[in-house]
């Protein structure tokens, strides 16, 4: 009979394969070291990440996903300047899997690096580790010429949730790149400040609908009377996706004063929007919207119908 249980081999024994002449054998050793889930394997994988064969290096970069901490992070950062793009891609992916804040020690010194790919990967890696020391470098990087780097930097700032970063986020919300603007607006969601509010409201006039959508969505988190006024205007956006987020946000803020503006939107032809309007009108439960809802109690669209009936029930329960 073959070995019954999966085995737990000695790490040193598994690592011997890394010295074999055949790259295939070295790849096998890397995979077995990864399967061990034993931190003693990290040092060996760190060695394999500078193997002569690109296939081995890539596998080592992937294998390090199984581990955490500064030693793992250092090995992955070293692979970000590999000659093979596949190795870099693997290392960048593994960096985003780090959880241990201490792993950030190995990334922080590289946040001023000139290599764009490396910098993007380092920001992506440090983001979830929430290291406050990364703030300065992230703010500096908002001026970087590469949009990917700027998005990464905004991500880091957003996760740190520091009111001190608001001016930087406001600048990022005016970035030339659509995705930087979107990300920056979403990142403002932690703040209840007038600063954040003003930036988000201004963004409702952005030329890109994706940016306006992000602003309309995030305004619900910031709250406040000015937000309601701005969102009521956004109900007339030319993109239904933006209108839908405005409706939802007004619903979340329970802005009953907007109910009679939302109610006529039930007559529009866009199913997703009508469904959302009905749900929000139910949450608001304003009796004056009843006639608008009643028209659609037997709507052919079942989601609209269901939400309309639910909404009418909510109004009745008042």
């Amino acid at each position, binding site marked *: 009979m073959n070995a019954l249980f999966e085995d737990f081999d000695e790490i040193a024994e598994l690592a011997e394969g890394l010295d074999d002449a*055949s790259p*295939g*054998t070295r*790849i*096998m050793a*890397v*995979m077995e070291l990864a399967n061990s889930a034993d931190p003693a394997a990290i040092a060996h994988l760190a060695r394999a990440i500078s193997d002569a064969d690109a*296939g081995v290096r890539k*596998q080592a970069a992937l294998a390090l996903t199984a581990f955490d901490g500064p030693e793992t992070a250092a090995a992955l950062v070293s692979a970000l300047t590999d000659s093979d793009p596949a190795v870099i891609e693997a290392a960048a992916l593994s960096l985003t899997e780090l959880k241990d804040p201490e792993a950030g020690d190995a990334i922080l010194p590289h946040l001023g690096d000139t290599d764009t790919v490396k910098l993007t990967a380092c920001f992506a890696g440090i983001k979830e580790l929430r290291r406050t020391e990364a703030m300065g470098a992230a703010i500096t990087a908002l001026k970087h010429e590469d949009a990917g780097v700027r998005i990464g930097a905004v991500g880091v700032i957003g996760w740190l949730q520091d009111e001190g970063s608001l001016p930087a986020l406001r600048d990022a919300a005016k970035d030339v790149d659509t995705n930087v603007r979107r990300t920056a607006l979403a990142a403002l969601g932690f703040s209840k400040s007038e600063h954040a509010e003003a930036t988000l409201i201004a963004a409702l006039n952005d030329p890109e609908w994706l940016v306006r959508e992000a602003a309309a969505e995030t305004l619900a988190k910031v709250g406040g009377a000015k937000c309601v006024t701005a969102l009521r205007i956004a109900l007339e956006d030319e993109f239904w996706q933006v209108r839908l987020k405005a409706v939802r946000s007004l619903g979340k803020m329970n802005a009953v004063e907007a109910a009679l503006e939302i109610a006529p939107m039930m007559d529009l032809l866009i199913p997703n929007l009508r469904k959302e309007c009905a749900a929000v009108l139910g949450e608001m439960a304003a009796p004056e919207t009843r006639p608008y809802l009643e028209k659609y109690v037997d709507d052919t669209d079942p989601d609209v119908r269901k939400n309309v009936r639910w909404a009418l029930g909510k109004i009745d329960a008042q």
Partner: protein
Amino acid sequence: MPLAQTSTIVPVVIDDALCIADKGCTVCVDVCPLDVLRIVEGPDGSPVTAHMKYDECWYCMPCEADCPTGAVTVNLPFLLK
């Protein structure tokens, strides 16, 4: 009563040039939930390459995703593709 030899086209294809079964790799065979892959052995019993032995594929992809050298391709079974 002999059983018939009916031919079938199998969905999982291995690039022999990339496969490192000869180095002892059995990753694709190990991860297949339906256990349909096997290693072809040479005349001396040594491993040569992987292949799909049984046409019982859920086209789920671990064999392709986990292969360290990109030697495995999962196609959809003809009957449903």
